[in-house]
């Protein structure tokens, strides 16, 4: 058995991977955001790196001393009345960031749409098209996935993995689900067949 702290596909190790851009750099996305009056959505399917990219954009905005209000939503964290209230209290110098726009119900979305027009800016992630302009369409490809896996297992030369191309196709490019399956695969590996001197 490979313990969680030695599994190269633990979430903490994956979160240390930077977003791999296909375009030149994050400034190009920011220019697109500025062009759309500081409003923008990062669109894309499940597990393609939208949240990772969003965090890097937030880092850029924070480095510019911007006032950020970050709301992260997922299937375990719903958007509620308190979130709406907090957003409605934001002043016009604030930039609202919402990761998981599609988690917000229609009624709350209406109020948030109304508010974001009165803020300094908004950037979010969504699986579907919205009324907010798309500033970047996130996607993955097999080469990106292979490179990410190579980075994660670089200290584990003995590690045997399943066919990564088949895995990528099986999950329709959802890298997050690919990593979950790789985690499960490795955790059942015989520890003697793995070099456990990986960094963590």
């Amino acid at each position: 058995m490979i313990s969680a702290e030695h599994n190269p596909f633990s979430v903490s190790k994956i979160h240390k991977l930077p977003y791999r851009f296909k375009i030149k750099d994050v400034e190009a996305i920011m220019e697109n955001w500025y062009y759309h009056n500081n409003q923008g959505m990062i669109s894309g399917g499940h597990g393609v790196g939208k949240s990772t990219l969003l965090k890097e954009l937030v880092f850029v905005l924070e480095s510019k001393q911007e006032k950020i209000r970050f709301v992260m939503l997922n299937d375990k964290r719903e958007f509620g009345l308190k979130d709406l209230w907090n957003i409605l209290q934001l002043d016009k110098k604030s930039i609202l960031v919402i990761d998981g726009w599609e988690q917000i119900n229609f009624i709350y979305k209406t109020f948030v749409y109304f508010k974001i027009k009165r803020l300094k800016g908004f950037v979010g992630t969504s699986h579907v098209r919205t009324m907010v302009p798309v500033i970047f369409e996130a996607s993955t490809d097999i080469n990106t996935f292979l490179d990410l896996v190579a980075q994660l297992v670089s200290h584990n030369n003995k590690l045997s993995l399943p066919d990564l191309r088949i895995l990528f196709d099986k999950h329709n490019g959802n890298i997050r689900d690919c990593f979950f399956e790789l985690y499960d695969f490795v955790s059942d590996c015989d520890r003697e067949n793995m070099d456990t001197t990986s960094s963590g």
Partner: protein
Amino acid sequence: MSHLSILLEKKQFRPNESIEFSIEWNLSNVTDQNLEIHLFWHTVGRGTEDLGVYETIAFNAQSSSGKKSFRIKAPAHPYSFSGKLVSLIWKIEVVSPATKLSASEVIQITPSESPIVL
């Protein structure tokens, strides 16, 4: 070159045992010599990380380099453990907020000397 380090004579402790350690620092060309020590745990594994800070000690180094000893009482829980889906890891960390420099050491807090393996 600035650096921080944590020195421990042993890394396995029982709950409520006294954890004795030293912090060594060299903060070249740093005017803000405030440092923070954190005793915290975090989870590692398949799911989202969780974290809990048990104790924080803030102190001013008052010199660009030096060494100081500390003592913290180990918490009663949670215990360190190692599992397939999740492990819980205790750490002592020292941070220089001004420079973002940090150092950490993993310690084990379990009722016996053997690690807990799930």
